């Protein structure tokens, strides 16, 4: 059945979720969470490449200080489309919609999510949102910045702001429905014996991210609706000329967009919590601390939003409070970093590709997180707000953290999702290239920001050119690191080694079913009796009834 053995070569199961049904209708009308995850995989890869193209154009343009490649207005459109595509159409869905959709039901031991049709609706909403965004792009692009600040976006720009805002709102509802599905599934559909204390930390992280999705996303929906009303009907909600308050827009926007960054990072942290114990062959250190720190990040993440507004004109006293709370929110993240490191300590480390990405995550996320504390300090923020320091900070957490975790997770679960192994040598090479390229791109930006180069500027003083050239050089290396997996993942679908049920000898219910899993996930619903992460205690995979 599904006990891991070493003697016979693994074979693909005869029937699994990929070949259970053929034809475009069986994919576009599927209710299987695993197929929906694959649909998302294609879609978000597309938006990642699109956002990456805009990034490439930005870095090309910034090679010279006088802005010779693009006009100023065009440059504004480039960074706007880069930000919108990356934040709303790649980072927010990435791990939850691809890995979460695929794994959460299997990890809790059930046949599907609570509401499969709503899950499919989620994907269609995402595609609809993406369509509106693409329309805005091809009809001239938008130049408001991904933050849509009013009254610039509501009263002055000539570009299709409302079209793009509608795309973001619709994609937001996609996110809400995914989060809703996860929350109900985790609460109400766990297998017999699967207590909260036995859930994989990946589930805890996605659950915490789902809490944020449902509590925060509606606020950006209403904010953008008000923005669209202001723009369309010339009423003054945020426009000071008409009696409105631009800081109110920022309050409402950041009430969602700050917790949104925790939507982005928490599932990535969940991935790391799965990879690190597996390749240290050691149980995770401090399971409950890691689990509760996810919830703490979700809760604390909601009370720090005005740290994006320190220089916008808010009261000094509330700025003090938000600054203090921003320091507090760093603590649960630090707890996780400590626990992952402690897990690795005296573990039997296996340097597989997922582990390389996980170790990169721990280092790069730490740098990103610590530089966030620089920004949370009121006095320092006055100097580095809206400079490249901020850009470097969030790219360290988002790319060095989140994208790294996403790639690590893709590599870790690729064998489970497709039944095939990716080729290890090119994968390791890609991981290393990505690491080098990433640091070369973004580390100089810390220095640039500290030296005073503002963000979102299409031209800069010539003394900043050397660092900008370094950064652009790094970007070209980074892009190679991102393209390589695209190539070898596709290659592996036909030529990759057959993986078998549990190529990593990992624990967790997903490894106890076939690779790829059958449509209903398990041939029989498991009864859970073991604690999670039972590495290094017994070598055989736990028996499932």
């Amino acid at each position, binding site marked *: 059945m599904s006990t891991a053995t070493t003697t016979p070569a693994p074979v693909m199961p005869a029937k699994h979720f990929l070949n259970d049904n053929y034809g475009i209708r069986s994919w576009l009308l599927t209710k299987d969470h695993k197929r929906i995850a694959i649909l998302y995989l294609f879609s978000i890869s597309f938006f990642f490449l699109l956002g990456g193209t805009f990034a490439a154009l930005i870095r090309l343009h910034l090679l010279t200080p006088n802005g010779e490649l693009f006009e100023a207005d065009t440059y504004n459109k480039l960074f706007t489309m880069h930000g919108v595509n990356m934040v709303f159409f790649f980072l927010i869905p990435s791990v939850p919609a691809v890995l979460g959709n695929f794994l959460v039901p299997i990890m809790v031991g059930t046949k599907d999510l609570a509401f499969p049709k709503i899950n499919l609706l989620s994907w269609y909403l995402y595609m609809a949102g993406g369509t509106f965004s693409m329309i805005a792009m091809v009809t001239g692009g938008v130049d408001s910045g991904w933050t849509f600040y009013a009254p610039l976006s509501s009263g002055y720009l000539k570009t299709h702001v409302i079209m793009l805002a509608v795309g973001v709102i619709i994609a937001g509802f996609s996110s809400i429905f995914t989060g809703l599905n996860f929350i109900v599934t985790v*609460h109400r559909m766990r297998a017999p014996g699967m207590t909260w204390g036995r859930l994989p930390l990946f589930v805890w992280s996605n659950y915490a991210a789902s809490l944020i999705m449902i509590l925060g996303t509606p606020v950006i929906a209403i904010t953008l609706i008000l923005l669209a009303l202001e723009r369309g009907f010339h009423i003054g909600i945020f426009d000071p000329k008409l009696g409105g308050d631009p800081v109110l827009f920022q*309050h409402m926007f950041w*009430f969602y967009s700050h917790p949104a960054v925790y939507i982005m990072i928490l599932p990535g942290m969940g991935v790391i919590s799965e990879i690190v114990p597996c390749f240290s062959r050691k149980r995770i250190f401090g399971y409950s601390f890691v689990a509760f720190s996810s919830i703490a990040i979700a809760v604390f993440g909601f*009370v720090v939003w*005005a740290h994006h507004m320190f220089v916008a004109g808010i009261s000094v006293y*509330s700025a003090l409070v938000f600054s203090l709370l921003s320091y507090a929110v760093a603590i649960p993240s630090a707890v996780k970093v400590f626990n992952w490191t402690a897990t690795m300590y005296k573990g039997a480390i296996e340097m597989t590709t997922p582990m390389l990405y996980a170790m990169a995550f721990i280092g790069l996320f730490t740098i990103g997180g610590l530089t966030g504390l620089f920004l949370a300090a009121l006095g320092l923020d006055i100097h580095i707000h809206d400079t490249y320091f901020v850009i470097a900070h969030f790219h360290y957490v988002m790319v060095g953290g989140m994208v790294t975790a996403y790639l690590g997770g893709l590599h870790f679960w690729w064998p489970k999702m497709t039944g095939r192994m990716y080729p290890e040598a090119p994968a390791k090479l890609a991981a290393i290239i990505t690491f080098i390229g990433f640091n070369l791109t973004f580390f100089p930006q810390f220095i640039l920001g500290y030296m005073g180069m503002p963000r979102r500027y299409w031209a800069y003083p010539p003394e900043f050119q050397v660092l900008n050239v370094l950064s652009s050089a790094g970007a070209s290396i980074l892009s190679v690191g991102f393209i390589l997996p695209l190539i070898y993942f596709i290659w592996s679908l036909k030529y990759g080694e057959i993986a078998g049920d549990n190529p990593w000898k990992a624990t967790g219910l997903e490894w106890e079913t076939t690779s790829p899993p059958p449509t209903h996930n398990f041939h029989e619903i498991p009864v859970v009796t073991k604690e999670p992460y039972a590495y290094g205690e017994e070598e055989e995979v736990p028996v499932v009834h």
Partner: protein
Amino acid sequence: MSDHTHSHPTPGLYAIILVTLVIGTCATWAIAFVDLGIWNPVVALTIAVIKATLVILFFMHVFYSSKLTKLTISAGFFWLLIMITMSLSDYLTRTFLPLSPK
């Protein structure tokens, strides 16, 4: 878990709630024309909260629902309160003290 299968509101209880809600609405409307100064909005919103609570507990069956349901609703209102109070904490403290002595 869910015990609404065993005990659920009767039409009689619904009717009582309805009458209470109507009385509350009339009270809100009538008190609005009495000058209570700063307390007018407080009274109006207090009555609104009581009405909403009755609708939630009885019309929406929450009185008979699981702890999870009750926790979920409380979390929702708590989050709303976070948004309101922390936003107001900016606006209401902007002129506490002058930023620099003249």
